[in-house]
């Protein structure tokens, strides 16, 4: 066969494979988009009904604001060049410039946008029930415009300027870049905002049961669903080896979520004598967050190990943060996204088929994973602290006691989420 012919075929195959990849990424992005609904339901379900409307508004608005700001500014920063600070900040915008416009890269913008919205929405759960709506909006806008895009720029442009990429750091779909960043921001926010009234009585943590476990469960199913797009889509291509890659990522994702739920179930069952519903749901999410970094580099066994560790760890972390650190995180966002995001990233150092300690790769990867993930946490925590501290000193972070006790819905939004609802919340 003449070379020319083969080239023509190859070109055609490449074009089609590119289109097929774009199709997969677009559909994956649509699945990730749906995770917003999942987050909303989990947060609504795990908190009291008097604040449900406010939570809805926060989740709708971080998606809305994030969509616009990431298009306008965030993308340009994330994929920019011209580095400052040893690679930590990119000072000139990406090729697209601000206000993204590209003839052929729209699906990538879409995929990155929904990731950005995910990072933003993590915070909302941790500070539910007492935070000013206006303050949240501002913080969320800054997070999607600057904090998260800078995080992303350290690794995901996959270029030589991305210092963590150069360092050999692995975070396939963002255990650190998205989840630990969101979790660290959530931690700082929860500390600065302070616990809900009644959460700590005489220094003892009180249970404030969420009002709707069915919403919580539906939310978790939707998140689990969306995660197939989150992780699978991060293959960023489809066809040939990429098909194998993306589908093995999906299997790893599913196994980690499953074993995370199983781990949390039996751990709580043994520990409290009851199979704890919301913890089991958190366990599934913990497995998902944990495997997000490594889903492309570990075997199914590795995925099970990471999922199981995260499923149990999330229970311990939630208890520790709640009872020992006395930080009030109604939905466990800090533990699910922060703790498991960090641990999941680090565990790649053990379980990576290529370079993991357990597979004879030595400690190098473990070390890179650890400092890479810590860098993300420190960055997100610092940046969030600065922003929230300024907000605290200016417009304030918290609603008045009266508003909090009577519910944010009626005061911030003029109506209850369930106006016909007769409650027995204590």
């Amino acid at each position, binding site marked *: 066969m003449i070379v020319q012919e083969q080239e023509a075929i190859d070109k055609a195959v490449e074009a089609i494979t590119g289109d097929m990849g774009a199709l997969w990424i677009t559909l994956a992005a649509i699945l990730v988009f749906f995770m917003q609904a999942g987050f909303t339901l989990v947060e609504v379900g795990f908190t009291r009904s008097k604040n449900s409307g406010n939570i809805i508004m926060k989740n709708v608005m971080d998606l809305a604001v994030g969509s616009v700001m990431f298009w306008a500014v965030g993308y340009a920063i994330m994929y920019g060049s011209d580095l400052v600070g040893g690679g930590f900040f990119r000072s000139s915008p990406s090729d697209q410039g601000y206000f993204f416009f590209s003839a052929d890269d729209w699906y990538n913008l879409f995929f990155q946008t929904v990731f950005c919205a995910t990072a933003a929405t993590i915070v909302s759960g941790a500070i539910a029930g007492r935070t000013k709506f206006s303050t949240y909006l501002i913080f969320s806008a800054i997070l999607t415009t600057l904090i998260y895009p800078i995080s992303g720029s350290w690794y995901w442009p996959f270029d030589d300027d991305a210092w963590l990429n150069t360092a050999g750091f692995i975070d396939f779909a963002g255990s650190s870049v998205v989840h630990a960043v969101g979790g660290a921001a959530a931690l700082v926010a929860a500390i600065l905002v302070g616990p809900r009234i009644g959460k700590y009585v005489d220094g003892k943590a*009180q*249970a404030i*049961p969420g009002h709707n476990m069915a919403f919580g469960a539906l939310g978790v199913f939707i998140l689990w669903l969306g995660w197939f797009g989150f992780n699978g889509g991060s293959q960023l291509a489809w066809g040939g080896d990429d098909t194998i890659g993306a589908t093995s990522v999906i299997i790893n994702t599913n196994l980690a979520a499953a074993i995370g739920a199983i781990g949390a179930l039996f751990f709580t069952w043994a520990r409290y*004598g009851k199979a*704890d519903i*919301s913890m089991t749901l958190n366990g599934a999410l913990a497995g998902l967050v944990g495997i997000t970094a490594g889903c492309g580099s570990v075997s199914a066994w590795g995925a099970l190990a990471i999922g199981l560790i995260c499923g149990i760890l999330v229970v311990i972390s939630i208890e520790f943060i*709640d009872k020992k650190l006395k930080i009030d995180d109604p939905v466990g966002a800090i533990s699910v996204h922060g703790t498991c995001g960090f641990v999941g990233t680090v565990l790649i150092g053990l379980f990576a088929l290529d370079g993991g300690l357990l597979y004879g790769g030595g400690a190098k990867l473990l070390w890179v994973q650890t400092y890479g993930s810590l860098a993300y946490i420190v960055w997100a925590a610092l940046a969030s602290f600065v922003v929230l501290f300024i907000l605290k000193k200016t417009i304030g972070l918290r609603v008045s006691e009266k508003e909090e006790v009577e519910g944010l819905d009626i005061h911030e939004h003029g109506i209850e989420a369930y106006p016909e609802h007769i409650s*027995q919340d*204590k």
Partner: protein
Amino acid sequence: MKKVEAIIRKSKFDEVKKALHQIEVNFFSYWDVTGVGNEKQGHVYRGISYSTSDIQRRYLVIVVSDDFLEKTVNVLLETASTGNVGDGKIFVSDVIEAYRIRTKESGSAGIN
């Protein structure tokens, strides 16, 4: 006429209702309340084990003529009881007048 207010276990309601019907007490109103008392119920939520004395109960209001009072109370005492802490209470008080809205009748005609 007397007003009998009974606070009972929700799980006993079906039995109580049946027994009331048997003694021809066919008129009453009920709703669910939270009761605070001796009984404690264990809970776990997100790692916090706690026991609460705020337990759901059913509240019954039965207005009866004086000659029905005794058997109504007795039936309640019999059927609502399990012998465990938390079976609930019965309170009896006076009613001055009762009206049936539909017919505007008052007195004992007003109650059933």
